[in-house]
């Protein structure tokens, strides 16, 4: 046969260089397993934004630990950042697991993923104490107003008057996890919507820059059980009722600050790692350092049937729990024997005092 030269595919033709972040990783390096959640579930969109945020911030995935409780939302850490250790724990009690893990290794970045059922009902006690301690963790509540995984019962964040598909009406008031967080000591508190890509991404990046408890309540519609007419956690309801308190801009520490801002309309917050948070006021009295004003804005929004989003409160000064404990710099978990087991002389001394 004639040796027809194979059409030209030069062996080392340069592939278009894959895009990488500042530590040389591709977005692929931040992906996880294939999602098993329902198509269109808000939780999937949040997973995507988490991938983007960690990629864009250039965080080494091995330096992150993902922790979750139980629920559709709590399953989602399996669907992003496979190169990070992950712990799918028990219902409502991820905060304690995270606390222990951070005590063992305070050099890690902790990302907690929970649901509204996981956080506001069975887990409310641990949630409260996590915030009170200002444990350094990004705590995301994927909030759909129902228990997705147990097939759509109301959760404690469901709005009064909200209706299930079956026609059952919720007649108890919702717990506002953000108001609670502001009161109880979380140092970075905001609400967003899984459908608001730009705002959620900016908030997540700022959360990564923060040191202390970040509480992000992200409205995340459950397409299977709570996305119908009469639900206050549906895509449609959010599109109609979302009201941003500010426009969230974020300039990471590794980027030049080239954008001028007007201090009259924009509040600049310098973050722990040198990044800058730029909050352009959309509400006149907005002040993210004033707890009372923040809670008041939330309450006002409720009474006007608005879902207020944005960053409500930031405190970059309060020490995190692991800082307060004055621990050695290295992770406690892997200190060598000689630093955790006192000498023979110490035992002799103790014994002598007991004689």
């Amino acid at each position: 046969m004639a040796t027809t030269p194979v059409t030209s595919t030069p062996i080392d033709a340069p592939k278009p260089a894959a895009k990488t972040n500042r530590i040389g990783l591709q977005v692929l390096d931040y992906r996880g397993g294939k999602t098993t959640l329902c198509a269109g579930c808000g939780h999937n969109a949040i997973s995507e934004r988490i991938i983007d945020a960690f990629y864009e911030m250039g965080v080494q995935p091995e330096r992150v630990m993902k922790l979750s409780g139980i629920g559709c939302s709590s399953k989602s850490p399996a669907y992003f950042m496979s190169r990070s250790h992950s712990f799918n724990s028990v219902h409502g009690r991820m905060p304690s697991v995270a606390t222990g893990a951070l005590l063992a290794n305070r050099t890690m970045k902790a990302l907690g993923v929970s649901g509204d059922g996981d956080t506001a009902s069975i887990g409310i006690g641990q949630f409260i104490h996590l915030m009170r301690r200002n444990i350094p963790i990004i705590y995301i509540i994927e909030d759909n107003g129902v228990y997705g995984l147990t097939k759509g019962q109301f959760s404690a964040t469901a709005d009064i008057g909200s209706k299930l598909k079956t026609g059952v009406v919720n007649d108890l008031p919702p717990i506002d996890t953000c108001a609670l967080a502001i009161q109880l000591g979380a140092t970075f508190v905001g609400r967003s919507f899984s459908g608001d890509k730009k705002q959620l991404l900016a908030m997540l990046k700022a959360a990564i820059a923060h040191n202390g408890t970040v509480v992000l309540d992200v409205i995340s519609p459950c397409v299977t059980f709570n996305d119908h007419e009469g639900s206050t956690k549906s895509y449609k309801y959010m599109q109609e009722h979302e009201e941003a308190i500010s426009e969230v801009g974020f300039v990471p520490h590794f980027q030049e600050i080239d954008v001028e801002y007007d201090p009259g309309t924009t509040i600049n917050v310098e973050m722990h790692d040198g990044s800058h948070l730029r909050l352009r006021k959309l509400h006149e009295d907005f002040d993210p350092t004033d707890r009372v004003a923040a809670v008041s804005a939330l309450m006002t929004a409720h009474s006007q049937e608005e879902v207020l989003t944005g960053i409500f409160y930031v405190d970059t000064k309060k020490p995190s729990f692991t800082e307060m404990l004055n621990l050695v710099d290295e992770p406690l978990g892997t200190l060598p024997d000689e630093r955790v087991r006192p000498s023979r002389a110490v035992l002799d001394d103790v014994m002598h005092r007991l004689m």
Partner: protein
Amino acid sequence: MATENVALAAGAEGGTLVTPDTQQQTSQVNVVNDFSIQIATVNGSGSQSANSVLLKSIFRMGVPVSGKNLFPSNIAGLPTWYTIRASKDGYVARKKEIDILIAMNPETAKEDMHSLPSGAAAIYEESADLRQFRDDVACYPVPFDKLTAAVCPEAKLRKLVKNMIYVGVAAQILKMDMTAVEAALRKQFARKVKAADLNWAAVQAGYDYASTTFTKNDPFVLEAMNSTEGKIIIDGNAAAALGCIFAGCTVAMWYPITPSSSLVENFIDLAKRYRIEEDGKATFAVVQAEDELAAIGAVLGAGWAGARAMTATSGPGISLMAEFTGLGYYAELPGVIFDVQRTGPSTGMPTRNQQCDLLSVAFLSHGDTKHVMLIPGSVKECYEMAMAAFDLAEQLQTPVFVMSDLDLGMNNWMSEPFTYPDKPLNRGKVLSAEDLTRLGGFARYKDVDGDGIGYRTLPGTDHPLAAYFTRGTGHNEKAQYSERPDDYYNNMERLSKKFETARSLVPRPEVVQTGKSKIGLIAFGTSDFATLECRDQLNKEYGLDTDYLRLRAYPFSREVHEFVASHERVYVIEQNRDAQMLSLLKLDLQAEEIVKLRSIRHFNGLPIDARSVTDDLVTQEGI
């Protein structure tokens, strides 16, 4: 042992009656270094220091001694008893009979008096006039308030100082060595010289009053021995805390509950002293949790992330830890849980002793779970088993329970000094980044070594293949999500194999076997002390020889089967109603072994005593 029948001096109803020396010598045989003292007080009256001085004075005289606090769940105002047992033979179990009563609580004085055997002695507040109730007890009435006022001008200190008066009175009556008493007292008040002087004055006032007022009218005396030289006195919780320190425990998360709180409090004190580095930074973190759900969650989270973590609790806390413990078992997370057992629910007798969480802990949680339990039988073992527990938890990658109890944990015990660990910490199978590069990856739940234990990695390991996803069951060898029947089955079988591995790693039982006796005794934890004494009673009083196996861990090792197999009848001695240890044994033994088991149970809230065990056994044997 102690109550040799002692006739009281004729006509002597009370110590104030002067009896000629000669008469005393002819009518009384001294009982030397072998009796019990019970101090009846009201809780909140500050008698602990006085009781401790009394105990340690006896210790300093070289006489084997033990002390027990029998107290109510209350801060002030309810009756409390402290018992001290001096025993030249070294018996440390509670002695059923009380030989010397110090009745400081008017509320219970009459009943306390009535509980004494004939020939006992009683020291009490003069105005109580207890003599009217018993003419067969040697009575030593003392005007406590008057004596206290004379040595303690400051009225608000009198309540405390009053207790030292009875130390002096008892010291005189028991013919104690006053240099030992003073040394014990001065050590007790260590740096507080003024307090030491004041209290010593009170002891002397009591002593002087007794020597000028009473003629000894009871047989009990203390004589110096040298059986305590080089020994220490410590409670089990402090000993366990020391074990945690030397085990390199770095994280403790706890929620206070009697009788476990002092374990963590001791750990905090010790850690502040010995685990702060030169720059002032700590190599430990202790956090008081919001509840036991959080305490165990943090322990498992810390264990997952590589720390040696512990918590300490008691029955009610164990119940709250149930769900997480199951996750710990299935997800294979190390952690150490001290269960300082007590009697049942909080609204019950939470400050009384029992060995009553064995069944609930062995199978704590949902699904097929079984847990490793270490069972210390002395303060020394509290120390050693605390260390062993951390090694085992990391070796086996599972929660490990240390089953202490109130009696062991909160009471003072004499012991040989503890020895420094001779092996480095065993941190189990953990892969480093270099290991991963060499191996080209790993499968978290694969049984590479045939012992049922996989290799794990810690968060923060700097290698792209280090991470894995931790969940309960529902995973394959590679920790990937799976609901396949074979994956679940194989994983559960591997967990069983791991438990078999535990069988060979846990502390072995202690066996005393002559090969001649048909009867075997099995006991564990604080039932050991009464069992040892019971064996001597059976031997001396009934000529009955018994063999003895002291359990030290669950799962049971091979020796337990051999012991049961080689005896006709085996008595399992324990402090609970439902024969919990016997039930656990039944699950492990063969039918022909099970029929040999008999049960002796003690569960009235008081620590078990030898006499009760002996009587029960003799009845069952039909002797």
